C-alpha cells in the first residue's frame, strides 16, 4: 500500500538516497527532451517549437491518470499524498512574476540546472539570479508577510473546488490537452522556422 515511505514500508532514512536516483532520471529525461536549451524552451511562446507544451501536458496528464489509477486499484492512498497548498493571491502574483522572469531568462530552476550540467553559462548566471532573488525575498518578507499568508484555501484539489468528480476532471484535462496538441501542431507548421 503506497506511498511507501510515509507508511514505513521503506525506512525513512532511504528517502534522500531515493531522491538522488529520482533526480538522475528526472535530469536525464529533461535534458534528453531538449529542456537544456533556453531558445528551445522559449519556442513554445513564439510558436516555432512547442516542446514545453507537449512534454509538460503529457507529463501532467500521465501522472494524473497514473495516480488516480493507483488510487483506484488500492495501491496508493491518495489522502497521504502531499498536495500543494493553495494560497490564492500568492499563487497568482507569484505566478505572474515568475512568468516575467521566465520570459526574460528563458529557464525555470529545474531546466537551468540541466543546462548548467551541460555547460551553458547563461544558465549559470540565471541560477545566480535565482539565489539573489530569493535573498531579496528574505529581506522583503516582513513587508509581505501578511500578503504571503493571505487567501489560504487549504490543501485542496481542483475537482473538490469545482465540485466535480476527479475522474471527470482528468477527462476534461485530457481533452483540453489533446486540443492544445493539435493546435500546436497546426501553428508550428505555419510559423517561420528558427535556427537555434
Amino acid at each position, binding site marked *: 500500500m503506497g506511498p511507501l515511505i510515509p507508511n514505513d514500508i521503506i*525506512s525513512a*532514512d*532511504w528517502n534522500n538516497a531515493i531522491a538522488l536516483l529520482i533526480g538522475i532520471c528526472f535530469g536525464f529525461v529533461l535534458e534528453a527532451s531538449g529542456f537544456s536549451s533556453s531558445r528551445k524552451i522559449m519556442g513554445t511562446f513564439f510558436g516555432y517549437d512547442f516542446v514545453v507544451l507537449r512534454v509538460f501536458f503529457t507529463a501532467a496528464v500521465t501522472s494524473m491518470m497514473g495516480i488516480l489509477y493507483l488510487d483506484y486499484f488500492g495501491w496508493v492512498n491518495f489522502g497521504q499524498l502531499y498536495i500543494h497548498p493553495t494560497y490564492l493571491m500568492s499563487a497568482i502574483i507569484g505566478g505572474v512574476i515568475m512568468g516575467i522572469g521566465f520570459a526574460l531568462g528563458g529557464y525555470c530552476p529545474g531546466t537551468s540546472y540541466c543546462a548548467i550540467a551541460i555547460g551553458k553559462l547563461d544558465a549559470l548566471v540565471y541560477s545566480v539570479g535565482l539565489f539573489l532573488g530569493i535573498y531579496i525575498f528574505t529581506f522583503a518578507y516582513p513587508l509581505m508577510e501578511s500578503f504571503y499568508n493571505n487567501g489560504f484555501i487549504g490543501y485542496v484539489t481542483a475537482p473538490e473546488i469545482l465540485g466535480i468528480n476527479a475522474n471527470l476532471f482528468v477527462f476534461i484535462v485530457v481533452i483540453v490537452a489533446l486540443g492544445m496538441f493539435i493546435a500546436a501542431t497546426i501553428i508550428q507548421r505555419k510559423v517561420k522556422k528558427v535556427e537555434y
Partner: protein
Amino acid sequence: MKEELFISGRDIPNIDPFLHIWHWQIPIYLYLGGLAAGILFFAGIFTIMGKEKDMKTTVKWAPFLVPGALIIGLLMLFLDLKHQLFFWQLYTTIRLQSPMSWGAWVLMFITPLSLIWVATYLKEVFPQWSWKFHFLEKMELLAVKNRKGMAWVMITLAVILGIYTGILLSAFNARPLWNNSILGPLFLVSGLSTGAAVIMWMTKSHYERKMMSRIDLVLIIVELFFITHMIMGMLAGSSVQIAAADLFLGGQFTVSFWVFVIILGLVFPAVLEILELAGYKIPVAIPAILILFGGLVFRFIMVEAGQITRYLY
C-alpha cells in the same frame, strides 16, 4: 550536597566508557595513506615493466605529490595523539602484534623512499638543479641506476601501507563494523583507485589516460564487490554485526553512504569511464573528482560509524 539524578539506560556521560575518540584527523590520514600507496604502487609497477617512457605522469610526476601527502598524513596522526611529546617512543621498538607499530615502521621506510624516488627525477623538472655536495650527486647516480630495485621495494611497501590502513581499523575486535578481514584489502583497493584517479587527472598523454582509466574501472568494480561482501558478511554474523550493517541499510548513515560513496563516488564514475571507453568524450576532471571525493567520504563514514557500533549496549 549537589546531586544529579540519571534516569537512563546506558551510555551515561562521565560514567560509562567514552567511545568516540577518533575524530577527523584519522580519516584524513587513512585517505592520504591510501592515496600515496596507490600512486607509489603504480609508479613502481610501471617502472618494473619498463614502461617509463609511455607512462611519464605515473612514474615521474604523480609521485611528486606523495611525500607531501605522507607528511600531512603523519602530521594528522601526530595531532590526534594525546601525549604528543612522546610520539618518538613508537620508533624505539618493533612490536609485531601491534598494527600501529607496523604502520609506524612502514611509514618510516616508505616516506624516505618516496623522497628519494622524487629526488631522482628532480633534475627533469628543474634542469639547473644541483646537489651542492659531491656525495649527494654520487648518491643520486646510485639511486638512478637502481630504480628497478627501488621500484620492487616500493610496490611491496605500498601494498603493505594500503592494507595496513584497513588493518588499523579491523584490529579493533570490539567494533563490529570494523572487525572483519576484508577491510584491509578494501582500503587497499580504494587507495589504488584514488591513486589511479589522480594519475588519470594529471596526465596529458592519451595512452596513459586510457590505461589508468581502465585500471581504475577494474579497481572500482573490485571495490564494489568487496563492499558488497563486507555488508553481506556482517548481515550473516551476530546480532551486533547485523546492527552495524543496518547503519548503512536504513540507519543514520544510509544516505551519506549510498549517495556519496556508492552512487556518486563509485557507480557514476564507473559509468562515465565505460562511456569514455565506448568513445564518448568526457572531461576527465569529473570522474576523477567524484572518485577522490567518494574515497574521502568513505573513510570518514567508516571511522564515524565504526565508533558507534559496539558489543556492550
